[in-house]
């Protein structure tokens, strides 16, 4: 099957534009410090892969025959799902890690506050102290 048969040229052009815009957007976010490079890596990598597949749809056929999908378009759907799932999982992992860090920081605040209260009680009362 030729590239034309797998993806209509118009669709290819459209998808390429969208994905390219997406890559540029991610790069822009990193450049202006709104997305860390570390978090952008998976997005860039997976989007560039999607871009490569769109530009060279024949790569789909390798994948299609490898796992036994009849229509290459279905392989495209499968890959799209995979793309979203992968990035979503990566995001959830980051959220979980942050929750753990926030919890630990909050606990540290609680400990430090208790420590301060204790020290304050040992000091002679200063003028201007809260009663």
């Amino acid at each position, binding site marked *: 099957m030729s590239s034309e048969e797998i993806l209509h040229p118009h669709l290819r052009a459209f998808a390429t534009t969208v994905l390219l815009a997406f890559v540029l957007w991610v790069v822009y976010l990193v450049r202006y410090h709104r997305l860390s490079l570390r978090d952008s890596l998976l997005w860039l990598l997976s989007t560039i892969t999607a871009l490569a597949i769109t530009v060279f749809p024949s790569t789909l056929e390798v994948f299609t025959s490898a796992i036994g999908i009849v229509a290459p378009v279905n392989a495209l759907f499968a890959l799209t799902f995979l793309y979203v799932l992968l990035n979503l999982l990566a995001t959830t992992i980051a959220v979980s890690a942050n*929750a753990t*860090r926030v*919890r630990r920081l909050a*606990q540290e605040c*609680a*400990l430090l506050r208790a420590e301060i209260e*204790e020290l304050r009680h040992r000091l002679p009362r200063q003028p201007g102290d809260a009663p």
Partner: protein
Amino acid sequence: MNEPALRVATHNDRRAAAMLDDVRLATPRALVIIPALNEARSLPGVLAAVREVVPEYDVCVVDDGSTDRTAEVAARLGATVLRNPINLGIGGAVQTGYLWARERGYDAAIQIDGDGQHDPRFIRAAVAPILDGRANVIVGSRFGGNGYRSTPLRRAGITYLSWFLKVRCGSSVSDPTSGFRAADRRAIAVFAQMYPSDYPEPEAIALAQRHGLKVAEIPVEMRERSHGSSSITWWRTFYYLVKVSLALLILPVPRTTADEDGSP
């Protein structure tokens, strides 16, 4: 001229001080951890009861983001107050207490609820096996004591969880949902390092077991709550069971002490 005599005196003083230190070190230090969320009304009763039963123990109240005067009441009654700046849930609150216990080097930590349903009279019974080295973690179970009234569903759930814990990690605790706990130094270190977040009680037992700690139980009596309502309503019991079952099924691997994160 007086100097030699003085020196001897100083030396003796030092020895006396060292002996005093030995005595102080030999006396085990224990911390009562009371997690509390909006328990300003129950706390005075709980704190008074604790003070009466174990006057030599230190008490810390973990205020998990209360909107009432919980922290103020606890501080006025002489407890150390650990105020979580944000609500972390019962797991995070309890862990704050264990972190304090670890930092201050306590030999034992006892965890009782701030709502007054745990009777402090059982604290000594819970700490005894800890200080004897017979167990690392003690759970206060309500089925050993007087007949604890509970809904049949909840009782069935507890029986199931107890069975599941036994199958999954070989612990024999008849009331794994009980929040009445005692922990020794090793258990304090484990819980300070990692503690499950929501509905943490059964998971914490599994965690202790996984770290090679010995978990045992003592019978306790529990009272009706003096104020407020239980955080587990009947329709939440099902969600509770599913969540805890899943947690026990997946069971995070024990972490090496090099890691410094909070929860699994």
